């Protein structure tokens, strides 16, 4: 029931379609379970999550932007290895946010590297909304 409300909200306001929509709905259900006051994801919160400097790894403070840059339509770079990273924004790179297994894997890894812990369902939804709207 509760999940149903969140789902309706999301479908009404997002409609990105495809697998990512299903994953956002799953995250919304989980967020609502954790916090009954949850009303939906916010790309403004997502932007803060993506751009704010956190504890990072290897003695280096990091933000999501450290590797992906602030402009998600541009190429980034893995800061430790130098390997180039294709743009994260789906409007610049049609392959992004298509494969949910891949999305989950990288959110797990990248939250751990940047924040030193996994992201909450709300944080993941917020940040995905930010990337989708970039």
């Amino acid at each position, binding site marked *: 029931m509760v999940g149903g409300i969140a789902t309706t909200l999301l479908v009404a306001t997002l409609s990105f379609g495809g697998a990512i929509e299903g994953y956002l709905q799953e995250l919304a259900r989980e967020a609502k379970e954790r916090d009954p006051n949850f009303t939906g994801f916010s790309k403004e919160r997502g932007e803060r999550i993506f751009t704010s400097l956190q504890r990072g*790894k*290897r003695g280096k403070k990091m933000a999501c932007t450290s590797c992906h840059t602030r402009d998600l339509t541009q190429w980034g770079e*893995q800061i*430790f*290895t*130098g*390997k180039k990273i294709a743009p994260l924004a789906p409007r610049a790179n049609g392959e992004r946010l298509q494969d949910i297994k891949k999305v989950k*894997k990288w959110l*797990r*890894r*990248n939250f*751990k*590297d940047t924040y030193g812990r996994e992201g909450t369902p709300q944080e993941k939804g917020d940040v995905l909304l930010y990337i989708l709207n970039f």
Partner: protein
Amino acid sequence: MFSSTFSTSEKGETMFIKRVVLIALIIGAGGASQDHNGTSLYRTLCSECHMAYQPQLLPARSWEKIMGNLEDHFGVDATVEERERRLLTEYLKERSGDRRGAEELGEFAQSVPPNETPLRISETPYFKKEHREIPKRLVKQREVKSFANCTACHPRAQRGEYEPISIPNYGPWED
């Protein structure tokens, strides 16, 4: 100079397919497709943050140790599913440079004393010897960052070809 069975060149790919076909004819498709799965899994999962290093570049015990701690992989999280982790470990160990009959790149693994288990290719004695003349600043510069970035100086390294050599902001390296 250096080439190896682990090669992503078109030639390598064709040779690989031929071998697979042969093996498939002899022992049935099961074993061969396993082999192919290992290769594509390795090239997908271990080339996301750097090139997929040729398995010959380290001894089996080093791969085992690396694959046993992907949570803290040189300071970053490189975890994969447990099933994938096991497949990749087997794949790497079977092709490691310290096994008998390893090809040229096996010199890296074979230079490691038996009581050592380096986690880096760049820590093997053979690697150090080959790279001893390169000034530190050319390695530390932002276009390279570290010796782990083989492709910065060996543009064809992913295919198992370590020549030609050209260092950013320095140019071609002639002996």
